[in-house]
């Protein structure tokens, strides 16, 4: 064999080497490794010796709690996704829209508790609180759009993003200025205290309320977007706002309506959150806001079904993931790693499905 011949072979090998689908191979190896670690962790956790092992009830309780949390996250995530679908911007102040509803309804709830109305007419009181919370969130959302975002509609994309972060800090600190930095205890009507058994599983009443309300709100949103005339206009603006405006759709009006719908959902979420945790504080919007934004991206930002799915997946992951995958490896305090865990999952989902779980990546829908 001549030396030139062997060099050619190496060349050919190299070119073959270079044409291998490396991206795919790396992804598959990465995916397999992660799947192996996850399965190994879960296996080790579930086969811990008797006495150290979590009970079956433990997992059921965690899933139920995770779904309850997820329902609230899903409602907030829908607000992110709707605005993104229409304006292609992340409304980072949406967590504060959520906080505003919960905080404003607190003053009514507190008054109703003191007058006894909360327990004597629980259903009516809850309905009024819901309306107040929705009104509070919607008002903040409208003002936000009108004052902070509309003047910047045609500015480069980074400008409204920074404005949104500024607006978020402004709203939170305005509430701090008005009502002080201390947490307020939100009253829970007697009717909602305690838990009930469903198929042998004990579910807190308030969690059941959260779950049902959230599902109803999501179905209503789906019907509104798909069936109503305004909903059709929203979809048209999301598709192409310029052409939609040529077709006679008032884009400004649709944008305001989108913020209103996001505000309504945030208001519902605010009340449900306040009832679940019975505490409101001016900082309460930040963490759920970030979590819901994560949920929206996880599900596929711009997709309504994706935001809802993302919320529930995130809620359950937060409750079940850390103990399931980390305890087996002997990692102490697994729950303190839940944020790190959630973002790891987010990154992995985005590596394998850049558009999110239900997003198509390219054509974002509302």
């Amino acid at each position, binding site marked *: 064999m001549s030396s030139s011949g062997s060099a050619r072979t190496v060349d050919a090998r190299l070119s073959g080497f270079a044409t291998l689908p490396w991206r795919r191979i790396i992804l598959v190896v990465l995916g397999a490794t992660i799947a192996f670690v996850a399965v190994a962790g879960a296996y080790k956790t579930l086969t811990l010796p008797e006495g150290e092992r*979590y009970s079956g009830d433990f997992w059921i309780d965690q899933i139920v709690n995770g779904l309850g949390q997820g329902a609230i996250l899903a409602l907030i995530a829908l607000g992110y996704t709707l605005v993104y679908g229409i304006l292609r911007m992340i409304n980072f102040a949406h967590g504060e829209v959520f906080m505003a509803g919960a905080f404003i309804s607190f003053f009514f709830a507190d008054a109703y508790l003191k007058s006894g109305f909360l327990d004597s007419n629980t259903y009516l009181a809850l309905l009024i609180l819901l309306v107040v919370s929705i009104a509070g969130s919607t008002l903040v959302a409208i003002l936000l759009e009108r004052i902070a975002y509309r003047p910047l509609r045609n500015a480069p994309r980074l400008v409204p993003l920074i404005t949104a972060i500024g607006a978020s800090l402004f709203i939170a600190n305005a509430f701090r200025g008005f009502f002080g*930095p201390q*947490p*307020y205890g939100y009253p829970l009507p007697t009717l909602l205290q305690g838990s009930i058994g469903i198929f042998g599983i004990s579910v807190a009443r308030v969690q059941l309320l959260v779950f049902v309300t959230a599902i109803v709100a999501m179905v209503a949103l789906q019907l509104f977007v798909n069936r109503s005339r305004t909903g059709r206009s929203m979809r048209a603006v999301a598709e192409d706002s310029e052409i939609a405006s040529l077709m006679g759709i008032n884009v400004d009006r649709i944008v305001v309506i989108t913020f209103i719908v996001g505000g309504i959902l945030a208001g519902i979420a605010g009340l449900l959150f306040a009832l679940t945790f*019975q*505490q409101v504080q001016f900082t309460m919007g930040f*963490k759920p806001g970030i979590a819901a934004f994560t949920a929206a991206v996880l599900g596929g930002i711009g997709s309504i079904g994706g935001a809802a799915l993302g919320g529930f997946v995130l809620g359950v992951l937060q409750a079940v993931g850390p*103990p399931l995958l980390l305890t087996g490896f002997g990692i102490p305090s697994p*729950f303190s790693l839940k944020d790190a865990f959630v973002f790891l999952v987010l990154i992995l989902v985005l590596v394998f499905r850049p558009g999110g779980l239900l997003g198509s990546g390219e054509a974002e829908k509302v």
Partner: protein
Amino acid sequence: MKRRPWLTVIATVAALALVASACSNDDGGGDSGGGDTETAAADEFGTVEIAEGEPINIGSLLVISGADAALGQDSQNGAVLAADYLDGTFDGTDGQLLGHDIQWSHEDELCTAEGGQAGGTALSADPSIVAVIGTSCSSAALGVADTIMSEKGILLFSPSNTNPALTSEEAHQPFYARTAHNDRIQGAIVAEYALNEQGATKLATIHDESPYTQGLTAAAAVNFEAGDGTVTVQEQINSEDTDFKPLLRSIAEGDPDVLYAPVFVAACSLILKQAAEIMPDVTIMASDGCMSSDTLKNAGDAVDGVFLSSPDISVFQEGEFYSNEFIPAYEEQFGTEPTSVFHAHAFDATNVLFDAIEQVAVENDDGSLSIPRTALRDAVFATSGYEGLTGIITCTELGDCATDVTIGIFEGPNWPVEGGAKPDTPVYSDTKSLDDVL
């Protein structure tokens, strides 16, 4: 010739450096030469010179804004009252120390490490500051204000830091001391109460990564295990979270008898409510960080049967001077009842400081005052048997001046704060010294 400019530059720099070092030597010499005594000349950190008619400048570094302002403002009031009492009466006008007025420089430490850094830097940059009363929160002192002050030789005297690390062999900074109790004692009494009074054999703890909560849970766990108890798990939370149910549910798996979660108000009320739901049979304990009117309001029924540990101020409330003179003066001058328990510790710290200044300050012939920094520190650390509002104050080499500490356990809702039920006396109380505990 071409190299000449370089030589000039180098020569100039060298000359400047020489001059600069000579100058700084002169400065040092000038300082010590200014004081007319040998003590002052020998002091490593120099002396504070106060001209005739000038005030003695004392710093305060407490949390005086935000959610924890009640804690720091209360201490600040206590310190200010000590200056008022220099003339032997609480009359609203400050007395004088060695013929000089007291001037306060109040800084805010925000109850964070960042706040301790900013406020500490501001105070240490002022050469007229003799000493600083602070900080309120351990997080503002530990590795931050205590280090900044010690580097400049300024005494930092805390009325309310309780974290054990601050006065530990490893971390103690030479110019740091405190009149607040060391949480090694509070943690030990929590463990003792859980073991002996609750008959607990299994303990779980939660901290929020802050020095205060870590110190308490670690001390409680060590002493609980020393009493033949089992610590099922030592968990940590992020204090900004709201949903602690997954964590509490996993703690419940270990089936503890007592859950000790000495976290701050917002997280504490959430944990009390969620624990009442998830583990109704477990006794919940917490500490003074949770003891607030806000917790009582927010947690509602969930505070019933929750045991909080806190310095037992009923011990010094019985004192004649405290209840007949100090508290009426406090209420008259600040228009409120004390909002925390550390006003008395601040009053004591400030008085110990004033005594130490009187001991070491040199009154010069021209009416000026020289206060050598190291000697001042040594005088404070040498305090022994001083009778303060909070009891007998004797400082150890590591800066712990509250040696015998009485900790009470208070059962909710009978907590000694605004809005608590009466009687607000402790259900258990014990006095220990640092030598008694692990």
